[in-house]
């Protein structure tokens, strides 16, 4: 019995239809042309991939590390695409011209070493790319507070020091940031929704914290994205290089309003920033 009958899927009393020899496939394409065609297709594919990984899909970066990162990634993408194309082209055309590769034991380990070397080379280059770096102590410091479903910003007031916060003190109207009135440094802190002012060309430190669930502070133009946890504040440093208005968003699923945690970032020279800050009222 054929297996299907054994398993009870097909029940036929009669014997299976007569077996016949495998049909002889006609060689419709000569072998060489097939390989050359495949090689050409792979070359086009490699070009497309190289173009895609090297193409600047996002608006130009406006932070120091972002410019370096973009440049390095695009170069790497283009070189990888080019290398892939050349390798596949060489392979396809060599095979098309009748080269028969001798695939034996030595070639196996040579290929293995080659692959490991390629991945290792890419890995080393990629690991050297700049991430948002730790900044000096004179960096401009603000606190970003994430909550469902908006970002808010706490600026240190004229004393230049961010005051202490406690989560238990958070109240939506009276004390949205949870500032501790017992701390004198907290008395002059300014709290604003969804608007972040940053000084142009100066290193900035963002202190990130969340009031409820996991968020991720994301500014595509600065090329920064950092997860924001409740209970574990963390810092993110970078330097904006261009004045303008940019968008902030949330990049970690935080609930129903995840898509609308937007905000505005204004990068301006330091004196304009100080002027704006002087006009804001502290929370008390």
């Amino acid at each position: 019995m054929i297996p299907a009958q054994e398993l009870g899927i097909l029940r036929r009393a009669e014997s299976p239809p007569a077996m016949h020899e495998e049909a002889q496939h006609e060689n419709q394409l000569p072998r060489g042309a097939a390989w050359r065609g495949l090689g050409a297709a792979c070359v086009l594919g490699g070009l497309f991939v190289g173009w895609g990984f090297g193409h600047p899909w996002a608006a130009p970066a406006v932070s120091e590390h972002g410019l370096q990162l973009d440049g390095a990634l695009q170069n790497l993408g283009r070189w990888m695409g080019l290398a892939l194309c050349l390798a596949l082209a060489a392979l396809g055309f060599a095979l098309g011209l009748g080269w028969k590769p001798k695939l034996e034991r030595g070639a196996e380990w040579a290929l293995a070493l080659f692959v490991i070397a390629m991945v290792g080379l890419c890995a080393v280059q990629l690991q050297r790319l700049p991430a948002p770096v730790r900044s000096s102590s004179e960096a401009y410091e603000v606190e970003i507070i994430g909550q469902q479903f908006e970002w808010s910003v706490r600026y240190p007031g004229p004393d230049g020091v961010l005051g202490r916060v406690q989560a238990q003190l958070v109240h939506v109207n009276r004390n949205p940031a949870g500032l501790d009135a017992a701390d004198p440094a907290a008395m002059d802190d300014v709290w604003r929704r969804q608007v972040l002012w940053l000084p142009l060309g100066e290193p900035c430190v963002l202190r990130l914290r969340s009031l409820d669930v996991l968020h991720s502070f994301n500014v595509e133009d600065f090329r920064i994205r950092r997860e924001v946890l409740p209970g574990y504040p963390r810092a993110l440093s970078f330097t904006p290089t261009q004045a303008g208005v940019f968008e902030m968003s949330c990049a970690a699923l935080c609930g129903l309003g995840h898509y609308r945690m937007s905000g505005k970032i204004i990068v301006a020279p330091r004196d304009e920033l100080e002027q704006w800050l002087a006009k804001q009222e502290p929370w008390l």
Partner: protein
Amino acid sequence: MIARLKRVLFPAASEGIGLLYLGLAMVMGVVGGALAVLIRTHLSSTGEAGLLKPETYLSVVTMHGSIMIFGVVMPALFAGIAALALPRALDRGKLAWHGLLLLSFWLALLAQLVFVASMFLEAGASGAGWTAMPPLSALEAQLWDGQDLWMIAVGLACLAYLFVALVVARSCQAAGASKTLLVHSYRFAAWLGLASFPVMLLALGMLALDRHAGASFFMPAGIVVNDSSLAHAGGMPFLFRAMFLHPGHPSLMILVLPALGVALEIMEANSKTPLFGERSSLLAMGVMCLASLVQWGADLYGASSQPYGLPAPSFLAFFVLAGLLLVGANLGCNLLRCGPRPRLELHFVLAMVVTIACAVLGGLWLAAQAPSERMHGSYFAVGHLHFLFGLLSLLAIFAALHHWFPLVVGRRMDEGLGRLHFWLTFGSFLGVFLLMQFQGSSGLLRRYWQHSQYEFASLGQDLAPIITGLTYLGAGAQALFFLNLVSSVWLGEATKRTETP
């Protein structure tokens, strides 16, 4: 009649359980694919509100991911093909512990029923993403009883596949000394399953305690929701990430290693000479297995989720990528030997080689620290993960079904229809996920109900209609496969050999 039903539903042979799993996977594949089409339709729908409400959209996204992983690829590739092909590969009549394998199928089926049932709840299914990160998933007030059902379903599925891993590991161990690469790949996958599924069950249990018993495994002090401070204290949210990634990465290898094993087996069955790169492929798969077991630590640091500012030892991900690329290169070298009119399964293997190349390329970006911070949470990650354990495993499943169809039915599936299905499937899904990676490079973020509020990812948003069109094409092409499958049972070309040679 009853006896026949009993023989099908409680089969005496391992192959029968394999067919049950494959049938389950096909049904859930229709469900998961329909959800994907729904997602793309919503994202391309014009107008203020879009097709779905925000909570519905998040539920659809969550269910698509969960069902595809736990209800399509795992049953088909890890359980189904194992039960179907391993008995012959191991030269034994049945896999070990037949009753346990049968129980695992019924648990897996129950898990899928719970998934589907959760979609009919009034408050909707879980909307926390298939990764279900706390504190969001631990907030009982916010999340939807669908979250509890989701946890039950995932728990049942993990239990089922844990049993499958036990059966496969035991069967492979008891077999003789000489094992094919297929057997090795399933053995590695089974070990990974044994190491990872219990941790997943533990994490789900701890999450359940956080949700309902006031425990604080993952909830730190000071969480304020709806203007009231929650009573939890002392937990760490990134502990769940660690506990999820510890089984998470091996689970991905459970989806990838059998796919590679199937490809290698198909190459071996289709060539007269010994397989090129047998030893290096075995080494590569072993390295992938080991590296994925410890990758959770690297990923924890690398994904910027730890607050201590430590540098990321993400080189472990590079080991996995190197191993994957090596197996792909070996497969490619073996393909060089095939004739000008290769069989259909070899088309799928070639497509898998291309998919491996794309997965490795994207994976390099996501493994290194600096680019990964930019890419996680965007469509780049979505495209990459679909390449790695969506498209690769899907191609392997199709190839395996073509390859082992004669074993079950004694006939071959139709080549012409199969070729058409292959080109439509591979072409469209390759385009979909490559374009998604480009979307991610433009900054388009995932799990967003709408992107229209932001301007920064406009180039990526322009690509969305193309992706949607290709998705429709790819999803529709699967009808061809079902047509081929069903019609070949009665109309296929009969063959004496039990595997297409």
